């Protein structure tokens, strides 16, 4: 789109056109080179998982000489508990976190963006301040709290905070989106006697699917990749997430079973990669818009 405008406006002399052509070729060469450099490690990892074990260290090519899925089979059962359990745990935690974040953050954002009540600006300012807060400063007392509640070694410390709108980032994201929805819509509903809850649920939510989807996908990916939370709260191997499982794999068999370790690494990336493949636009727009807000 912008290409056409730019090229049209600079219909200059012949030399400047050649010059532009050269610059464009050079740019493409640079970008292709950078792309290869960026992707090579990932592709190499993928290729290595299909190689026989003894070939992994000796080959830097991206095409295995022979295909075998032994690494995946060995890796899947490489620990006392199979990776199937870790995947199941990670999915359960991630999906519940998504539900919590989408529900609680949107309720909070709705109150800040649309409802009128005393002290709103004050609480909103406090909420914004928590955006910058490093979680380390609450980590230890939270741990003590969850320990006293008997929640250590359960998924609860990882999930419950999401239902309490603890991710200020998503509240902020949703407030920005809600503010862009025309007020006439909820005013009309208000005139018709709709309660705040009905306006939230029947008017705002259906209109906010893009931002809800963005929040859901980011929550899924960040929960999936979270390492410190599970590391602190989950001690039983049966409850491990994929990240903890991988790390245990490295510590116990990593040096001896390289193929298995890389194969499991690839598998843990697959769900995130699928989100990337199918929802790339939403993710990129989500990032671009948060960055543009002052």
């Amino acid at each position, binding site marked *: 789109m912008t290409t056409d405008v730019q090229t049209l406006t600079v219909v200059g002399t012949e030399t400047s056109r050649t010059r532009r052509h050269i610059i464009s070729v050079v740019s493409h060469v640079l*970008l292709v080179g950078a792309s290869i450099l*960026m992707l090579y490690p990932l592709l190499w990892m993928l290729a290595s998982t299909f190689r026989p074990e003894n070939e992994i260290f000796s080959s830097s090519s991206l095409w295995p000489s022979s295909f075998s899925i032994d690494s995946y089979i060995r890796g899947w059962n490489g620990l006392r508990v199979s990776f199937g359990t870790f995947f199941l745990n990670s999915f359960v935690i991630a999906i519940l976190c998504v539900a919590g974040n989408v529900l609680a953050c949107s309720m909070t954002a709705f109150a800040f963006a649309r409802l009128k009540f005393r002290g709103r600006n004050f609480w909103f300012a406090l*909420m914004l301040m928590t955006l910058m807060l490093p979680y380390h400063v609450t*980590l230890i007392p939270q741990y003590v709290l969850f320990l006293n509640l008997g929640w250590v070694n359960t998924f609860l410390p990882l999930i419950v905070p999401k239902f*309490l709108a603890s991710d200020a980032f998503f509240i902020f994201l949703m407030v920005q989106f809600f503010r862009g929805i025309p007020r006439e819509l909820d005013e009309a509903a208000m005139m018709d006697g709709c309660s705040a809850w009905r306006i939230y649920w029947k008017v705002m939510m259906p209109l906010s699917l893009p931002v809800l989807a963005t929040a859901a996908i980011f929550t899924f990916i960040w929960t999936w990749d979270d390492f410190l939370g599970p590391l602190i709260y989950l001690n039983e191997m049966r409850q491990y997430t994929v990240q903890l499982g991988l790390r245990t794999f490295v510590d116990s068999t990593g040096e001896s079973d390289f193929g298995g370790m890389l194969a499991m*690494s690839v598998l843990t*990336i697959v769900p995130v990669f699928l989100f990337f493949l199918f929802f790339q636009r939403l993710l990129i727009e989500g990032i671009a818009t948060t*960055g543009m807000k002052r």
Partner: protein
Amino acid sequence: MTARSMETGVSAAGRAVGTQGVWARIWQQDGPGYLFLLPWFIGFFGLTVGPMLTSLYLSFTNFDLLTTPDWIGASNYVRMFTADPKFAAAMRVTFFFVLFSVPLKLAFALGVAMLLNRGLKGLPLYRAIFYLPSLIGASVAIAILWRQLFSGDGLVNQFLANFGIDGPSWISNPRYSLWTLIILSIWQFGSPMIIFLAGLRQIPQDMYEAASLDGASKWRQFWKITLPLLTPVVFFNAIVQTIEAFKSFTPAFVISGGTGQPINSTLFYTLYLYQEAFGFFRMGYASALAWFLLVMIAAFTAFSFLTSKYWVHYDD
């Protein structure tokens, strides 16, 4: 303020029930807002404010999770600054990491964003390729990959061997180990790049055309138009990336096996905090570390905002 009644009609409804007393009116006006905020309030006080104050208190105690904490005054902080070589090492490592990874990452992000913004064909594809590492970079899997890439017989050394260079084991050499983590951070330049791209798009093209007509070189246009107009985005990216860099944990943990070795060369601040809290259960000392981290981040943020009026250009 005057828009309140018009905006929600709540006051009109409030007037209707006025006879039921002042409480009913307050409920009518403020009730829904506070009800919607209820989950957030529980979280805010129960999981943020309460724990913050608790950890501030704990930082002045010798809490070890098992026995009741004893008040020991500021001795945790005194020990931190005077008698803890590991703390000093963690500070050095973290600051080195922040100072090199953030500017390099942002420079890369801006450079590639400017290349992409020239209206090249295939922009969505390039953007996607460059963004992918940011999305998966924080995972354990990538840390494992990195450990392999930079190990003694890893991919990097295999590549260098083609030129007859016999590379060291980058991961286990204290001179290079931190650099492998800095490279890992730069590799994830995609998300600031996307924000830069969005910012570049907002710069009006006619400014460049006017500048070209006046004979300004591309170099001059970059310094006089692009960069000044982009400073709000640079500002945002710099703050976000710096805070992220301060909080970086997983790569260092996985690559060093949770130790911060060799010779504490990858002992990130957060890794040291984790060791103290959950390795040695010195929760009081770890709380002091956490509060000092908060102070550093707050000081950095405040400093950025205070100086921003001298270098961040807002067009209004």
